[in-house]
């Protein structure tokens, strides 16, 4: 897709708005704003954030939104890197369940509600998630299996593993520090969102400040050429899947910490779909290559907003999947190069007053406004 990562030097004299408008995720931003406006129309106080008199925390729909978007954001960032290498990671939802199952089972057996137990549980969960990611990475890079098949296997095996870990039960545990991860606040902001933001920032700096991002993209664009250029794909592929596994583990911890129960058949169910959607909405092509972490983060925010809006607008539960699908299809259509070219062509034809605009080639009009 178009440029998302490297901003050309010329853009300095363009306004910030101009830069943003030419990002592939602009329609996700528009849709996000639109959803918030729709919520505002239903309730003018929607965006209000106030201090809850009983709990002393900031509370409001925006806070709920940030909290709900954190797990999606985690898996979406991992998924972005995997997709950039022309892969896909279908196992993220199951890894979430495994990570949740491991941490809950550990804490319910450890019994005490100390910080140490919480940290140990989280550490163990992340280690096992990383292990599952490593299995994916090894099978894809060294054995050379299709990423789709490989991660499909881990997806099925992972949920089975989660059920084995808790013996098919929905294990609950009591641990205040662990619960704080999902329900607490730092300076009024939800802890989950702060952690998610920090992790995204670390990944972004690591990927974009080093050559790693370029290597990932080059593998996705042309693996053969990348190898010829001296990039070793095995190490990079394994680390990309490991990162995706760890981030899914973090998402799993977020997800179970919010209710302090792991629901083995429901935690992280269909989460891979949300992650892939967030990535696609964010403007990263499933064909691999160029990727946009910012886009995926916005995509994750959009998915969470969409889920919350459905409830806020009281859309009947029978219609929710259709509503979600409709919104996503519209965004994907708006992003599609071909559809945009079609609109541009029609506009060029409909404007005969300006014959100097040249031939109505799809690439000619570079303006990003929509007629719709």
């Amino acid at each position, binding site marked *: 897709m178009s440029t998302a990562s490297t901003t050309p030097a010329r853009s300095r004299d363009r306004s910030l708005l101009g830069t943003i408008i030419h990002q592939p995720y602009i329609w996700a931003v528009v849709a996000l704003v639109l959803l918030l406006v729709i919520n505002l129309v*239903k*309730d003018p106080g929607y965006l209000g954030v106030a201090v*809850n*008199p*009983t*709990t002393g925390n900031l*509370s*409001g*729909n925006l806070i*709920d939104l940030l909290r*709900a978007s954190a797990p999606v954001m985690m898996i979406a960032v991992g998924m972005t890197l995997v997709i950039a290498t022309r892969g896909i990671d279908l196992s993220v939802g199951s890894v979430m369940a495994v990570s949740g199952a491991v941490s809950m089972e550990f804490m319910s057996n450890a019994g005490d509600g100390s910080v140490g137990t919480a940290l140990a549980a989280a550490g163990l969960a992340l280690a096992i998630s990383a292990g599952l990611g490593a299995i994916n990475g090894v099978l894809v890079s060294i054995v050379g299996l299709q990423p789709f098949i490989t991660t499909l296997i881990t997806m099925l095996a992972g*949920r089975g593993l989660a*059920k084995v870990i808790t013996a*098919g*039960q*929905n294990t*609950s545990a009591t641990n205040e520090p662990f619960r704080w991860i999902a*329900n607490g606040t730092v300076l009024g902001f939800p802890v989950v969102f702060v952690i998610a933001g920090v992790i995204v920032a670390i990944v972004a700096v690591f990927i974009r400040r080093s050559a790693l991002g370029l290597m990932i993209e080059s593998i996705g664009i042309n693996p053969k050429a990348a190898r010829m250029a001296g990039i070793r794909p095995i190490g990079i592929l394994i680390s990309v899947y490991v990162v995706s596994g760890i981030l899914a583990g973090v998402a799993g911890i977020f*997800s*179970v910490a*919010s*209710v302090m*129960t792991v*629901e*083995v*058949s*429901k*935690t992280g*169910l269909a989460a891979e779909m949300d992650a892939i959607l967030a990535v696609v909405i964010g403007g990263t092509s499933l064909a691999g290559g160029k990727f946009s972490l910012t886009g995926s983060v916005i995509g994750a925010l959009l998915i969470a907003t969409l*889920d*919350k809006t459905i*409830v*806020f607008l*009281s859309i*009947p*539960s*029978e219609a*929710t999947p259709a509503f979600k699908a409709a919104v996503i299809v519209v965004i994907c259509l708006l992003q599609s190069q071909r559809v945009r070219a079609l609109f541009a062509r029609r506009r060029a034809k409909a404007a005969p007053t300006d014959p100097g605009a040249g031939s109505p080639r799809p690439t000619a009009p570079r303006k990003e406004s929509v007629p719709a």
Partner: protein
Amino acid sequence: MFTTAQVRRIAAVAVAGAMAISLAACSGGSGSGSTDSAGSGSGDGELTTVGFVAVGPEGGWRTANEQNIQDSFSKENGFDLKYAPATNGDQNSQITAFTSFIDEGVDAIILSATEATGWDSVLKRAQEAEIPVVLLDRGIEPNDPSLYTSHIAPDNVGISASAAEWANAQFPSGAKYVVLEGPPGLSVVNDRNKGWDSTIDANFTKLESQSANWSTEDAKSVFETILKANNNDVQLVFAQNDEMGLGAALAVEEAGLKPGTDVKIITIDGTKAALEALAAGRLSFVAEYNPLFGDTAIGVVKDALDGKTVESDIVVPSVTFDSPAAATEALPTRKY
């Protein structure tokens, strides 16, 4: 290309069909054969083979129910139970397990369906093979009692009606309430809605009815948004299972309200976790949906194999818990 592919597909279907029919015929013979032996020679220690098409891990209720069935149909009781849980609640995997039980020629099949619809053709095949089918918990739609031997389940309509009666008594002047339901389309969800809607007084206002997929996490997320959308002006939640009720209680606490006082929460199922929450005052009313009916199922399967007439609809009695005291009393002996 297209036509050859089509011809090939038709041929494949025809061959598969022929195989299925011949297999069904075989199993029919062997099925009735072993039925005789089970009927006459149960004292000889020969085991009756029963296929259990189950749902698998889903929640506390399901675990208790399936464990109870597996414990009841034990070798000591003269049964060889083959347990086939669905893969992630997928109906297709259940249909596959069901047909392979027919092909194997088991003596009887017990079925806990994940979805109500789509069972007609396989049930007809079981009928042709003369294998009695006992439905547990979830029924089938359209409900045709000629397709199965018996349906054993607690009465969903009656249970949710009793919950609504309690709500009517608690709020004589009405209240604003929210329903947290399971995935749309399930017969349980329809029945629990039916019992509630037909019994709840007209002065109650239904603010919303949203699906939270039987899940604590979803219920918490859904209910926190509903509370915000209604400025916390919700007095009653009818959660169609325990897990969702517990999620709603978490959302209520998060909003700085007190579950049980500011928002009363009704749940159905009666698992241990829910009774503990009721004893602690976080839930207000728990209606049991009794999962322990393995003994009833054994009786039905034995009667059906002996050729006795069996009642086609058997209701499992369930109780309700309306106070922390009642929950505390029931907790020590709670099996699930």
